[in-house]
């Protein structure tokens, strides 16, 4: 609850700070606000389940942990913006303000107890993203991406709202606990209206986490948006979205698991196939990461579909591992593509990394570790993420789904390793890239965390 209040106010403060002549205060201020939010987040730690705002928002250790992952990711991403100093048209105050507001939306969909809260949260998050996607106003692709995102997002919102309405019609309540008690009393005998409502609501949410066949916006939007905001979308929106799906299904709809799991399983497998297989053909690293984010949505869906006692921990760990690795991969991409842009050619393909290791061993190493983690190679956090996810599926007995998942992670190695091969084995003429000290610290910390959680995943459980 506290981060929601805090960031709503501080977002406005950031907007006001934008009136000052010197823009240099914005970045440190925003980072400070994020740290404050993170600190306030833990006020409710270990208090059990607490309800706020007329029982519309729930706070427990799970939602706080998700909040923390979102905040840490946001901190890293904001730190990597470097105040947007190198872009003349940029409006740093507005960007930071919108990012902070979007985090408020993320907290709401992580902790919602009331479907209206979910809806409002998703809208806050989505509208922020539409704006940020189109923030590069002079770039046609950015504009196109924003418009596409907005059109399809509006469509998905409509579907979702319809689903919420049907659920209300069936149960007479927006409250998750009320719905839960309704469903458990009725069992499989609930009305078709509830089934339809649940499916439509799920579809709306699956759209947000880019599950197939509702993923079509993802590659175009991720590719068109400025890379920094792509990073934001692919980590924070995804983490929050999965928290929301997991809470909905685990809280209210476990009694009718036998109804929804098949649909979700089919979507999971489709998502895994689409994400991984299309990624193979991509020549653009950024576009590959877009497909990679679809495929990781697939892995996370495995955990949700199996809904075992391990799922909660698996989703948390996976989100963290995925977010850190994605942030460092995009971090390296931004540096390299900026260097390329200065030399006169915009290049976000694999070939941009050719020969990276020769003069920039740190960047090449960071890239390699993040790719290994995304591919799920042992001794990185990504391996344990997959391990926990697969473990929860085994507990539910969904072995056939695991076979697909394992095959697809083998496919994943192909496109992740292409980046490592480019960086280490290919010849290229990338000169020394200057990295700002703070940026370097973020990259090193992210890489260290990936390796640390890879060596000792138990640390994470200790933290909880």
């Amino acid at each position, binding site marked *: 609850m506290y981060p929601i209040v805090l960031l709503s106010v501080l977002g406005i403060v950031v907007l006001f700070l934008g009136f000052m002549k010197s823009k240099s205060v914005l970045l440190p201020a925003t980072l400070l606000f994020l740290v404050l939010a993170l600190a306030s987040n833990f006020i409710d730690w270990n208090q059990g389940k607490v309800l706020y705002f007329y029982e519309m928002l729930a706070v427990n250790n799970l939602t706080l942990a998700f909040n923390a992952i979102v905040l840490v990711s946001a901190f890293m991403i904001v730190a990597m913006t470097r105040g947007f100093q190198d872009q003349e048209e940029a409006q740093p105050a507005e960007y930071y303000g919108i990012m902070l507001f979007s985090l408020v939306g993320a907290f709401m969909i992580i902790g919602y107890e009331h479907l209206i809260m979910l809806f409002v949260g998703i809208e806050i998050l989505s509208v922020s993203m539409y704006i940020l996607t189109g923030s590069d106003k002079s770039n046609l692709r950015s504009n196109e991406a924003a418009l596409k995102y907005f059109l399809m997002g509006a469509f998905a919102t409509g579907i979702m709202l319809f689903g919420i309405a049907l659920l209300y019609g069936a149960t007479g309540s927006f409250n998750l606990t009320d719905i839960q008690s309704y469903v458990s009393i009725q069992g499989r005998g609930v009305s*078709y209206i509830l089934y339809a409502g649940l499916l439509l609501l799920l579809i709306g949410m699956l759209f947000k986490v880019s599950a197939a066949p509702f993923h*079509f916006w993802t590659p175009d939007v991720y590719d068109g948006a400025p890379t920094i905001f792509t990073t934001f979308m692919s980590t924070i929106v995804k983490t929050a979205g999965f928290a929301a799906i997991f809470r909905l299904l685990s809280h209210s709809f476990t009694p009718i698991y036998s109804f929804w799991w098949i649909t979700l399983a089919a979507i999971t497998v489709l998502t895994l196939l689409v994400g991984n297989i299309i990624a193979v053909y991509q020549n653009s690293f950024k576009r590959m990461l877009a497909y990679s984010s679809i495929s990781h949505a697939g892995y996370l869906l495995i955990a949700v579909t199996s809904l075992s006692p391990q799922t909660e921990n698996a989703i948390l760990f996976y989100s963290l591992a995925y977010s850190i690795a994605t942030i460092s991969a995009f971090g390296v991409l931004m540096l390299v593509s900026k260097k390329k842009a200065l030399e006169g050619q915009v290049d976000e393909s694999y070939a941009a990394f050719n020969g990276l290791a020769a003069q920039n061993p740190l960047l090449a190493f960071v890239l390699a570790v993040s790719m290994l983690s995304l591919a799920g190679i042992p001794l990185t956090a990504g391996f344990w993420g997959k391990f926990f996810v697969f473990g929860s599926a085994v507990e539910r007995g969904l072995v056939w789904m695991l076979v697909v998942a394992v095959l697809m992670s083998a496919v994943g190695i192909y496109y992740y390793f292409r980046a490592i091969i480019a960086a280490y084995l290919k010849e290229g003429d990338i000169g020394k890239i200057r990295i700002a000290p703070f940026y370097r610290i973020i990259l090193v910390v992210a890489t260290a965390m990936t390796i640390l959680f890879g060596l000792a995943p138990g640390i994470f459980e200790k933290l909880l």
Partner: protein
Amino acid sequence: MSASLLVLIPLLPLIGFLINGIGFRRIPRGAVGIIGSLAALGSFAVSVVVLMAFKEAGSTPQVVSLFDWISVGELSIPFSFQIDQLSLLMLMIVTGVGSLIHVYSAGYMKEDEGFGKFFAFLNLFLFFMLLLVMGSNYVIMFIGWEGVGLCSYLLIGFWNKNTDYNNAARKAFIMNRIGDLGFLLGIFTIIGTFGSVEFTEVFRQATGLPVGDPVVVVITLLLFVGATGKSAQIPLFTWLPDAMAGPTPVSALIHAATMVTAGIYMVIRSNVLFTLAPATLEVVAIIGTATALLAASIGLLQNDIKKVLAYSTVSQLGYMFLALGVMAYSASMFHVITHAFFKALLFLGAGSVIHAMSGEQDIRFMGGLRKKLPITFITFLIGTIAIAGIPPFAGFFSKDEILAHAFEHNKVLWVLGLLGSIMTSFYMFRLLFLTFFGSFRGTHEQAHHLHESPTSMTLPLIVLAVFSALGGFMGVPEVLGGTHQLATFMSPLYEGARQVNPAAFAATTLSHSEEYLLMGISVVAALVAALAAYVVYVRRDSVPAPETQERPALQRVIYHKYYIDELYDAVFVKPIRTLSALLFSFGEFFIDLVVNGTGTLVKVLSGQLRRTQTGSTGYYIFAMVVGIVLILFWNLLLR
């Protein structure tokens, strides 16, 4: 005894390894030797302190646990050290002899370009060897076991620009791996049977089993397979002579004094299990005796100074296993100790000779060196007398104890053992006479270059010579008026074994006169063999035939080491290579087809699926609607 003190023992060589290993390009040569030697000496000093503390505390064994290492299901493997009589004795040998050889190496390897690398490996070896002897369970022992194998590989192939040396290194590694597989299977069987790998726990449970329990026989046989690899016994002994490709201090430390005795250490450590398996012990005794004889006979005709010593080592290890086979565990350990002294001495002496001869190793081109290398000569002489088993030098006491136990167990083993010891005495004195007596047979340049080695090399020789001469007095048998301090010291180790098989540990049935007789016979035999060597190589001044000359059939067979290498090549290496080539071409064709086919399939699929991403929003929304309709239709109408 505090854990921090114990940890220092293996930690110091590890630190030495890290310093020299990471910084060997930057650290000045002078410092490298000092760092490496200090690490070994420090470890020795701590070991001495630990030994004192152990004796003061009433000689009670203890396990010092450092941390929980592996916990899987019911099985828990702690990282802990066991300090008892056996590990302390091994500690003293490893760190004591190890330190001397480090000091020696500082002189011997001074000119070598890989000086820093050499000391790094030597320190690393010490670290693993210490883990091996200090570990309180089979898994830690196995880490050390593998680690010393690795270091042995690295050091045999130390001069890695020579292909033959690399092949020798690889041979050693592969043969050791075969043994290691047996050891590993043994450990697995132990886990399966006892549910633990901790020595104390395994042996506590084992005492409840009957003698001859089939599972224990299997376990001990598997463990023994491991021992034959590491301790160069039939059929896995051929790597050790080839291992002489490494620098001489390596031969002395790893391939004579310490690593090769790991197999014996392991058997003594597991004495409860072995005592429970008389069948295995029989195998151990037979293999040990056969190895002792075979290797000694090959040693008779070798002309390379290090090869002679290598075969001698194999043969002496055979004696140790003979002792184990007749359950004379203390006698075996006694021989390990004395052998460590005199064989390290002989190797280092040989190194000193090679150093003086500018790298020449063939004894046919030596001779008359005693005047030019007086210290080397005297110490080498002491070593030779010690290994030949002539009293009162160290080898006499230990070897005689083994032979006495063999006599008690089985007269045939004793006769064979005696035969081996006659050969030992002959080939050792042959080596001594050909090297140090007569006239110089090398080139003029070599003669000009001859010199005694520097102090850093002669000092370890002198120290080892003193121990080779006097070391036997730690085990003077009762019949010669001693109390056999070593056996008394070690006796608590066999409590478990004594419990399961009291008969095996009964007091000797030999009368004093019988014992005197046995000693007399072996001493006279050794002296006669030495005399024979004197007559042939000093009086008649004969020199072994050059390579080109035809030899009589029997001599030829022995000279070519019974063609065992060729046999292994024909029976194992060639068929495996053929099979490997066959599988390779199969893999090239079929497996590549499947693998590349899958890759191509995915890529083609990807190319097609990619077309779904058209870029048109209308199409995207249409696809989504189709998806939604399908989901709703299937869920709400079809189910």
